[in-house]
């Protein structure tokens, strides 16, 4: 076969695929406008970057000047806001269960008096750990405030015991810990969560587009034979059919990244070319995966369902929220065959972490290996399907 003939088959398939997209407005909508609408909605959700003013309840059983000072200090912290001040713990608990507050601060009766008597009163924080993220943030904020309050009291007590003010201040924190996040200095959710969700959503769109494209051939009578008749070789069929979605997917992912890195000003400390290449490998790997699923499944909706099993739980397996090193061997292995996992690792390296390139190479090689494996599998399945159904139909489209 000559090079020109080879190019001809590819162009034929590409033109046919583009006409098929144009003839299906619902499909066209799902390919580009819909992911963008979802990106914008998600961006709006995470726009604050950090949860602020989480509602908490206060039970002040003391009602003294000092206890009111604690309440003011709690309210003054940026993470929480005192939404309810109730007279009993039972009422506060009710608010906790009804999801009106995430945590409760309880100041014991006679706190001020007990402080003066030198009997250490106990401030108790009850936090709703079922809402792990919000409950934890609220509890940490109030814990810090209570400890700051305690340090202030300590300072006064030490001074009244004849320890000089400078000396007392030094005694308060004998071992200060300078805490710094190595990247993402403000611990911003946009940088670590939104930045991971956008590719996760894209993975679903890209896989689904490939599933629908290959199902049109695989699940119609004589479809593969017709495809091979037009394309001559499996390679041209694959390239011609997938290229429109590769271009669209790259464009949409790029727009998502523009939103993230330019509009939200998320950190980008990497190499643009590597980042882009990584994105391209990711999109191609997702497409090959989707096409393979279409070839394996019984029909189009079955293929979409099978795809959903792989891509819908992918976010958990990628280890964004719960780290991969804490997972079982099975979960680590399953996660590693999903393109999202190496892609996100490299994405974090090249954006937030600013890791030198050599650290990203293993993840990139792994992503490339996945792409090669899925492509080989797809090629073999199309080749076999075309052998099994020889040119029985002399159909032209």
């Amino acid at each position, binding site marked *: 076969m000559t090079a020109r003939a080879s190019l001809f088959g590819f162009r034929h398939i590409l033109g046919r695929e583009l006409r098929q997209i144009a003839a299906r407005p619902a499909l066209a909508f799902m390919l580009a406008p819909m992911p963008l609408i979802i990106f914008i909605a998600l961006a709006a959700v995470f726009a604050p970057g950090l949860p602020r003013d989480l509602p908490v309840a206060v039970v002040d059983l003391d009602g003294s000047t000092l206890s009111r000072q604690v309440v003011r200090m709690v309210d003054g912290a940026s993470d929480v806001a005192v939404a309810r001040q109730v007279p009993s713990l039972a009422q506060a608990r009710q608010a906790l269960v009804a999801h009106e507050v995430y945590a409760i601060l309880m100041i014991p009766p006679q706190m001020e008096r007990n402080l003066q008597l030198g009997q250490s009163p106990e401030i108790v924080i009850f936090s709703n750990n079922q809402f792990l993220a919000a409950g934890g943030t609220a509890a940490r904020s109030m814990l810090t405030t209570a400890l700051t*309050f305690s340090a202030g009291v300590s300072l006064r007590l030490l001074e009244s015991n004849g320890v000089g003010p400078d000396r007392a201040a030094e005694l308060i*924190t004998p071992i200060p810990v300078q805490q710094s996040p190595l990247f993402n200095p403000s611990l911003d959710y946009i940088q670590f969560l939104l930045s991971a969700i956008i590719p996760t959503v894209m993975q679903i769109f890209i896989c689904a587009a490939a599933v629908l494209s290959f199902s049109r051939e695989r699940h119609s009578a004589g479809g593969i034979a017709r495809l091979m008749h037009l394309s001559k070789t499996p390679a041209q069929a694959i390239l011609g059919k997938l290229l429109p979605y590769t271009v669209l997917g790259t464009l949409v992912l790029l727009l998502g990244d523009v939103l993230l890195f330019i509009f939200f000003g998320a950190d980008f400390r990497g190499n643009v070319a590597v980042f882009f290449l990584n994105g391209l490998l990711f999109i191609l790997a997702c497409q090959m995966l989707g096409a393979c699923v279409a070839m394996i499944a019984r029909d189009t909706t079955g293929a979409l369902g099978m795809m959903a099993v792989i891509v819908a739980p992918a976010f958990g397996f990628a280890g964004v929220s719960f780290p991969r090193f804490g997972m079982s061997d099975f979960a680590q292995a399953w996660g590693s065959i999903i393109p999202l996992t190496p892609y996100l690792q490299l994405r*974090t390296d090249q954006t937030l972490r600013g890791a030198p390139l050599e650290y990203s190479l293993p993840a990139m090689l792994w992503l490339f290996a996945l792409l090669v494996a899925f492509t080989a599998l797809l090629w073999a399945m199309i080749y076999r399907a075309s052998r099994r159904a020889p040119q029985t139909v002399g159909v032209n489209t």
Partner: protein
Amino acid sequence: MISLRLFLSEVTAALRTLLGDPNARMTMIAGILIYSVLYPQPFVGEVVRDVPIVAIDQDNSAASRSFLRRIDASDQVEIVSAMPNMDAARDAFFRREAYGIVIIPAGFEKDILAQVPAPIAAFGDGSYLLVYSNIMEAVTTVARAVGAEVNFERLTATGMDDVQARASLSPVSVTNIKVFNPQGGYASYVVPASFVLILQQTLMMGIGLLHAGRRMPTGLRMWATPVAYIGLYVVWVAFTQLLLPLFYGIPRTGDFSTLLLVALPFICACTAMGFAIALLIPWREGVVFFLVVMGLPLFFLSGIAWPIESIPQHLHILSLLVPSSSAISAFVAVNQMGASPQDIAGTVQLQIILAIGYTALAVAIYQLSSPPRQQAGK
């Protein structure tokens, strides 16, 4: 009586149709079973223990070594190796062999003996919030404990008595009691919530597979079909909310009859919305595509991973049109926190409104689109 028997036979017939359709069976039965096995896998470890960190001990004294041993002994982190300098530590960090760095500067012991503050530094991976807070909690807890011991000795050495020294160093004791999910388990946090969403999505997907682009059931069958789906999904509610927690060791305190109070209207709302979607998108593949894609965004709108208070209000109100947005917290409140019917009354009302609203919408779309179809049939 006869009509009831007739109705029940229609319900069984609808269920048989469901079981006879391989795609609907795959989605509404096998799919949920597969998700039950697969979805919780990343989280079954529940808590992150022994996060690997490295230490740079520039002081290399008895005090610094003892300090690092205590950090290593904590549950949250594990010091995997000692590093000579920041470059080596950074290397381990980029290789993801370590997620935190603790630095004890030279002069640590000398400062403690000289009774001046002896600062240390801790770096954590800010790209994993769970890991970061683990590292910082471990380091600050040890620093506070060691600091308190040092101070106590200093004060008692000046002749202050034990009680007075303790009272002036920590005049207020602060306790944090974690209620519900006390161990802070990650599976306990996401699994019960996610399965509410999985039920909604598979139910609407199944309705799409069975009815999108097809003739709608009529007569008695029109009412028997949704009743069949609702009945099936009440069984799934029991399976995912009672059996799954048991299987994965997720704490559960709620009362099943209270759960049904919210679950039943929720399933009715999902069924009605499923029919509305099937009528609006008369393309089966399109319905499946749409619902698969919407899963993750809907999860982030439910208030579990990101507090509802931080979601822009307009978007939150808009999201309430989807049953899961309000139902997920109500399910969790009943099942994991033991909420009473009063606590979830608002959500129950909302689910009833959604069920009625989507039924009306589905009927309206059907009425508007059916006349041409009848003509075509003639």
